[in-house]
């Protein structure tokens, strides 16, 4: 009560100084609260809608990112081929007979060129000019002559005959066709003349869009229409193999020691602080370590999945140790005590009771670590996995590149067709990550049910 009286006295004093407070003096505290309630509720609503819009904004970002990349990637999954009338004339091939030996060294480029000139006689009957010839030849993939070779080698009876062969179009033409220009219109890097040729081929129904198998079966190439991800994918698998082989046992062993055996002293504290800090060290620093120590001191080969795997192991080890420790900590102490009570040694308790119990959590942690390593690029740039490598690596000491680095390399390429390739490679990488994460979730729920 005295409080209220005090208030009213205060109000009286204030009335003299400020006329605008007149209203409030006539109201009790409850009324004041009731009056301000509307404003406060409005504030509450505003705050809540801020929160909701932040969440929606987050969703939007995910959607925009994924749909942008998917949309850009779609053109990469199909490719235009063209049916060409090829004349395997012996004079053009520059060989006498159709034996395997002579077929393998015949001149297929001239066959391709001359067959093409025959297909496109100029309207006036004139011969094609030199510039026209060059422009015409540019429409087809540089790989076309090898396609001709493979076709003839596979069926030598075509020797000296005219046959239809499907060959790849050049990436510029491929992009042009995918962009949906109207027939015969010059565009992208195609001239009027070239566009008309394409229109002619189209009207004769010689052009066909096929699923781009070579994207999955070829390795990197300077020619976008030939470039594929097989080499990078193999490199990724080899690197992940090394990473898993090293980081899983080491991580589990380290976690077991720290959780089950380590005495509480400064040394253990030091290890713990170390692990926590390593988890936050930028990945590129691990690349510097790999370059300066693993390559320059130990002399392991540059660009090899072995070195990549070791660097990624060092990087993911903290993640795996931290996750494994949490899983081991979650094993109820009653299990340990029961086993100890039956006379098992500390080591037996650890390996036959604690470890199996903690396994689901440990596996989940390891998978998260591997997923992290799978998408990592920066440290691998440092150890030279960024080179242009055409061969598919066959061992962990071969030069190789990995999928994220391939994405980085392609993203840098000026050719328009590489844009779609890059996006498609990203989709493959994201799909891999999705599979890995889903596996982790499924494994966890399966183990938990048990």
């Amino acid at each position: 009560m005295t409080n209220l009286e005090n208030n009213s006295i205060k109000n009286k004093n204030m009335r003299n100084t400020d006329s605008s407070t007149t209203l409030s003096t006539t109201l009790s505290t409850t009324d004041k609260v009731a009056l301000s309630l509307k404003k406060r509720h409005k504030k509450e609503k505003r705050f809540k809608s801020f929160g909701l819009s932040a969440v929606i904004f987050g969703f939007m970002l995910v959607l925009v990112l994924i749909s942008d990349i998917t949309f850009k990637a779609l053109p990469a999954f199909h490719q235009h081929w063209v049916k060409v009338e090829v004349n395997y004339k012996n004079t053009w091939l520059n060989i006498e007979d159709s034996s395997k030996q002579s077929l393998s060294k015949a001149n297929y480029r001239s066959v391709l060129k001359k067959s093409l000139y025959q297909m496109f006689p100029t309207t006036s009957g004139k011969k094609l000019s030199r510039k026209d010839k060059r422009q015409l030849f540019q429409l087809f993939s540089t790989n076309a002559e090898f396609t001709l070779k493979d076709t003839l080698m596979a069926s030598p009876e075509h020797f000296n005959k005219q046959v239809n062969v499907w060959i790849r179009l050049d990436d510029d033409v491929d992009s042009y066709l995918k962009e949906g220009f109207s027939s015969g219109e010059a565009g992208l890097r195609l001239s009027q003349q070239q566009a008309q040729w394409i229109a002619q081929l189209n009207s004769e129904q010689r052009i066909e869009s096929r699923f781009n198998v070579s994207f999955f079966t070829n390795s990197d190439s300077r020619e976008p229409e030939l470039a594929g991800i097989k080499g990078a994918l193999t490199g990724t698998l080899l690197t992940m193999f090394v990473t898993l082989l090293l980081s899983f046992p080491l991580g589990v062993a380290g976690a077991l020691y720290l959780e089950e055996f380590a005495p509480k002293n400064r040394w253990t504290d030091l290890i713990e602080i170390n692990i926590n800090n390593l988890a936050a060290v930028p990945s590129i620093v691990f690349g510097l370590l790999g370059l300066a120590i693993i390559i320059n001191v130990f002399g392991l080969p540059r660009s090899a999945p072995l070195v990549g795997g070791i660097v990624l192991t060092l990087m993911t080890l903290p993640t795996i140790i931290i996750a494994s420790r949490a899983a081991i900590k979650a094993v109820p102490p009653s299990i340990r005590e029961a086993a100890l009570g039956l006379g098992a040694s500390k080591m037996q308790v650890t390996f036959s009771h604690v470890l199996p119990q903690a396994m689901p959590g440990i596996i989940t942690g390891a998978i998260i670590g591997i997923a992290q390593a799978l998408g990592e690029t920066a440290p691998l740039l440092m150890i030279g996995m960024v080179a242009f490598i055409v061969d598919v690596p066959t061992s962990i000491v071969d030069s190789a590149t990995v999928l994220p680095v391939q994405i980085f390399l392609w993203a840098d390429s000026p050719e328009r067709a590489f844009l779609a390739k890059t996006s498609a490679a990203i989709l493959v990488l994201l799909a891999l990550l999705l599979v890995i994460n889903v596996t982790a979730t499924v494994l966890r729920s399966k183990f938990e049910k048990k």
Partner: protein
Amino acid sequence: MALLLGFKNMNSSLLFFTLISLTLFSYWFGLQRSLKVAGGAEHKKDLTCLPEQFGLLTAMVCGLPALITLLIFNSAEQIVIEQLLTTTLPTSIQAFSSIDLGLYLNNIRSMALSETTQSLLVGITNNSNLALQEQYKAALTLQELNQQAIWLKTGLVLVIACVSVIVLVRKFSLTFQARQKSETIVRLLLVASSVIAILTTFGIVISVLFESIHFFKSVPIADFMFGTQWSPQTAMRTDQVGGSGSFGAIPLFAGTMLITFIAMLLAVPVGLMIAIYLSQYASAKLRAFAKPMLEVLAGIPTVVYGFFAALTVAPVIRNVGESFGLSVASESALAAGLVMGTMIIPFVSSLSEDAISAVPNALKEASLGMGATKSETVIKVLIPAALPGIVGAILLAISRAIGETMIVVMAAGMAANLTANPLDSVTTVTVQIVTLLTGDQEFDSPKTLAAFALGLMLFITTLGLNILALKVVRKYREQYD
């Protein structure tokens, strides 16, 4: 595995497999020996330990010392062989500078790898050029040395494996404590695994520190820390114009801070609001859906963000900016910063959510009981109480942004501009590390060493932020426990 290790290392992988089979065999051998000591399978109860434990110990004693020898041998092999080879070279070549000698040795190495012994011999006899003859001879010596090393390695590893098994097995008796001994070994292995973390840190410090000290010998540390001019191109020839290179890292630090600042400007409010909404307002259903959805953002590889920033966000920003009549660099700091912010949102939101939900419920309920609205409770009670945790989260996020590489490599520029304009192009520490170390490099030039000095700065900064963040969070925990 043999396939994986490849043809070149056929001998190494073959040895590795022999060792593994030997280890498996010694498990069986140890087991049988223990039974024999006991006097047959029916008397195995007389042994102190199970026969399997005898087997396990034998396998470990067989495999481990041999494996360690193999690893040490492999890592030291190259250096020793190189030293031996150098001593056989003529004195005129030995007097080369270390770089020239390295090149010369490289030549010989590739020659020894690519050619057969016969063709080398032919090369020696058929070549009149004395210098070339010397090279062929050296390559031949190298091949011989390599061959000897392989024999030595194989012999050493196998002898160690066999001898240690024999020595062990001779000690077997009824009271032999096989289990205790094997447990000691396992324990040592566990300790060794946990020490790897320390070794890694040590390795990082050594690798960046030594190269940095090397670098600071040619470029004074003050010039590096406070110089405002960054152009690391050093001259190929000494008489070249403008090729001395300047290594003032201030523009890089400024660029890094600018991009980090932009990223935080996006990530902190959005991340914090998401954390508040999901922990205080959202239904369980929405939470179950939203959390994994946002985790997608955290799981996307940074190279994908880099691609998105460079090819989608940057052109959009450029177009929008130009429609307002602003000049926007095609590799603007804004694009890289915004995309980096996107990447960090889930990081901030999950850490702040942890901090908010760690606030004792009593505080929240007391505030609500007094009639405060939810938003008032959040702003006046929960956030102040969770502030140390949130600050820790933000510090960790900053450390993350500073160390992030791929987004800035792909979306930020190379030019070291000293500017605070987010529409301009800036470069960062990580971008320069990548630029300096990819492509052609000679190991001892200031240009490559500068990358390690930048790496040192990066390591110290992120480590400092991290330790600070952990300290802040730990202090806060003590308050309520």
